[in-house]
């Protein structure tokens, strides 16, 4: 395959391309889903994909296929695609920021090889989760457990001489518990996922993950719908992580900033308080958004987006860095070789401050404490963002009172950044999930300390 890849790259350069890269992945995937005690899905699959990206003058052409024998034809297609749009791009230039070329085989970072895990072992993880989740209470009426893993051989090669081979492994384990009391049904979940090998699941313990899912589902049976209005909120680190991801992360992606985003032209501006410190770091060991090299062969790194309230840096690909005259921050990622890589976050977090949790609560006369990750969304152009949580508590005179559920908050980025008035003193970067952008999913992790935010709009149903 190495020879095929190299000759495909040589061929497009000979035609006049400025740059090209090829990514391939050959992977084996196993998915096992159990619903109400029965293994209802037992799937094993093998998939190969290769994608080639060609830069011709100021245009990108991209093509992908599942068939390696078509590689040279696909490379030609990518070149033709780039050429066909060149005349319509107003002679725009694309400059890629410089990056050191490397030839490297990335060593695996797991102790136990997923290939050595038997189907019985995998089924065992599921049965253990199911048993524990159901045993929590007779009100837990149904449980769904899913386990999937994959191992792959991946190659990245470009026309500058970089050639990276890796053999990543991945698993994810989800437990969904449904509690029912009369007509009322509530669902909650917990999960574990990692690129660092199956040891992580054994260590986190399927039974504990299942216990957490069922306990949360039960708790929700007692929760009320939340109130609405503008109030102070204390965000659990998991929720604070989503807040950072949505309110700051996306707008700081340079592809957004180069178009119209709320941060366009604001680099170096003070947009928040001294305590506003936000970081994206792909190098933290073992996190869901960690990686050694991005999908342009640039090393993953730590980037300070906000420092003491000042917008210090955007997150970059080589193209966006080239357009702004800086170096890539190694944030260009693709869901698979079938997609063009785009600017993405890795592990994004709010850096810790110095406030204790008690002090944080004491400062709230009437507000809401929010926990339980559900996700969020942002409009980087207009600056409105939102995030939803599974449950929370009302805060009255510094104390947690009534339990509430299914709550979302909304705000405008530039307003909210000024309204963070409490930053906790302990860092937790544990909120793992998948971030969707331009039709691609990327594994990410978010986190931070406990945060206190004033004047957030809470969209309660009550």
């Amino acid at each position, binding site marked *: 395959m190495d020879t095929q890849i190299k000759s495909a790259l040589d061929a497009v350069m000979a035609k006049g391309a400025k740059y090209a890269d090829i990514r391939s992945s050959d992977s084996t995937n196993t998915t096992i889903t159990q619903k109400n005690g029965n*293994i209802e*899905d037992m799937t094993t699959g093998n998939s190969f994909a290769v994608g080639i990206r060609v830069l011709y003058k100021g245009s990108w052409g991209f093509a992908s296929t599942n*068939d390696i024998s078509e590689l040279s034809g696909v490379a030609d297609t990518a070149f033709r*695609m780039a050429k*066909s749009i060149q005349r319509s791009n107003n002679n725009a230039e694309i400059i890629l920021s410089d990056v050191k070329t490397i030839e490297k085989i990335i060593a695996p970072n797991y102790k136990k090889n997923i290939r050595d895990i038997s189907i019985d072992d995998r089924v065992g993880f599921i049965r253990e989760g199911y048993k524990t989740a159901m045993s929590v209470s007779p009100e837990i009426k149904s449980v769904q457990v899913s386990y999937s893993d994959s191992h792959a051989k991946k190659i990245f090669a470009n026309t500058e001489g970089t050639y990276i081979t890796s053999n990543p492994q991945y698993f994810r384990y989800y437990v969904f518990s449904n509690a029912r009391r009369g007509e009322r049904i509530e669902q909650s979940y917990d999960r574990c996922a990692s690129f660092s090998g199956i040891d992580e699941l054994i260590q986190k313990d399927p039974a504990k993950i299942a216990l957490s899912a069922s306990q949360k589902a039960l708790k929700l049976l007692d929760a009320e719908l939340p109130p609405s209005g503008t109030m102070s909120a204390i965000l659990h680190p998991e929720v604070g992580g989503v807040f950072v991801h949505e309110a700051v992360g996306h707008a700081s992606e340079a592809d957004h900033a180069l178009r119209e985003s709320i941060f366009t032209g604001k680099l170096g501006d003070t947009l928040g308080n001294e305590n506003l410190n936000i970081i994206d770091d792909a190098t933290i060991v073992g996190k869901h958004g960690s990686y050694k090299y991005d999908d342009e062969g640039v090393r993953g790194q730590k980037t300070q987006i906000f420092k003491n309230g000042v917008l210090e840096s955007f997150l970059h690909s080589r193209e966006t860095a080239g357009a702004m005259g800086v170096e890539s921050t190694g944030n260009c990622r693709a869901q698979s070789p079938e997609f*063009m890589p785009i600017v993405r976050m890795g592990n994004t977090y709010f850096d810790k401050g110095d406030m204790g949790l008690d002090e944080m609560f004491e400062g709230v006369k009437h507000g809401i404490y929010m926990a339980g990750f*559900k996700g969020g*969304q942002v409009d980087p152009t207009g600056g409105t963002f939102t995030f939803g949580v599974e449950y929370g508590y009302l805060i009255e005179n510094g104390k947690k009172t009534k339990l509430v559920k299914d709550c*979302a908050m*909304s705000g405008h980025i530039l307003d909210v950044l000024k309204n963070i008035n409490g930053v906790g003193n302990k860092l937790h970067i544990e909120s793992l999930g998948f971030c969707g952008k331009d039709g691609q999913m990327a594994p990410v992790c978010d986190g931070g300390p406990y945060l206190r935010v004033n004047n957030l709009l809470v969209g309660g149903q009550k």
Partner: protein
Amino acid sequence: MIEEIENVMRKYRGVPLEFFGSNHKSMSVEMKTDKVSSSDLSVTKGIGVKAIVAGRAGFSYTTDIVHLDKAVKIAMINAKYSELKQDSFPEKQIIGAVKGLYDSQINDMGPEELVNNSVKVMEKLKEYNNGIKVNHSVFEAGTSDNFLVNSNGISYRSKATGMSGMIEAVYKNSSGGVNIGSATIKGFDVDYMVEKAARLAVSGVGRKSIKSAEQMVVIDSDVLESLFSNTFYSSINADMVQKGQSVLKDKIGQQIGASGLDMIDSGRIEGGLCSSEFDRDGTPSQDTSILSAGVLKSLIYNHVTAMREGNKSTGNASGGFGAMSSISPTNIILKYSDSMKFDKMISEIKDGIFIYEAMGMHTANHITGDFSLSINKGFKIVNGEIAYPVKNAMFAGNVFELLKNVSCFGDDVRQSGHLIAPTVVFKNQKIVG
């Protein structure tokens, strides 16, 4: 390909097998800040194999046809671990043709035509208002060539095309986003896209805060489709109901919506975005009444979930080659007894909000139907007129309550995703400001 499958079926005679093959070609052109920036041609091919061994089904897939025999063996091994009860695959039936699902012009399209389309849309937006920029657009043309073969003698094939467009137009600090899709070029309504994106961008400048209140809420069909996709469609999914993950369990025959509300899942509409001749299991597509006068009539089923209840599948099996079939609506037609001209409908609203875009749909509770959304593109309606764009407002409620509180349907019917519906007015909804 079919020949290889027949060989494998002969080899494993006696083992019920199902093969679903897919060959999808997709071309797209992307524009950023008024400039065409990239184009993409991707081909995805693969085949999924389901095997039944001792009344249990196992599954495998591969992107390499050379490994077909191995894929069958793995599916048979997986069946031994599986507890998914399945005795048989669907029987062969006559599959009626559905028109308007394939357009050779889309299949034969080159990147130049998509580039021209992107540029044309940009120019039309600037004709509307010279201050508008295309922040981002993606136009895509694709062809899917699928086949389904099983050991009951089914051997169906379908070819379908699709064209889609996404645009984000920006005027000052206000954006207008529109998505459109169509199976044929004829149905690809660029004018609708341009008018709506331009209007939303330009009229979105000067947003004002509002106060919390119960009021009439006018919902664009895109927003309603997105809300249903994250809540209601899973509630009528037979698998979710059988697993106790739907509040519609045991609700067949009961009133769950307004008494004038009808909902039909219709898989055979000419040119429908979600039409097909047969579903992922090989069941012919059909019409299924979901709501009639607000009464829940049926859930949607695939082959396996229907067999569990001793029913017939409603032809709602969906999915690609990489997984066993799941359940999804086809085209969902929503109708109401009381409808009027769009302009008249708006003119009769004294106090309300028109929602064109809402964020946070995926955080809605897909079981209980509770939602809390951020209104990203909304306009206050005062005395029958769209008065001004709103800022920092949320829409909180419950999808089942929404179905009971339908006030009126407009006449601007179009398809958005699964949903075929006009703009809808709901009464007594909570807006938080």
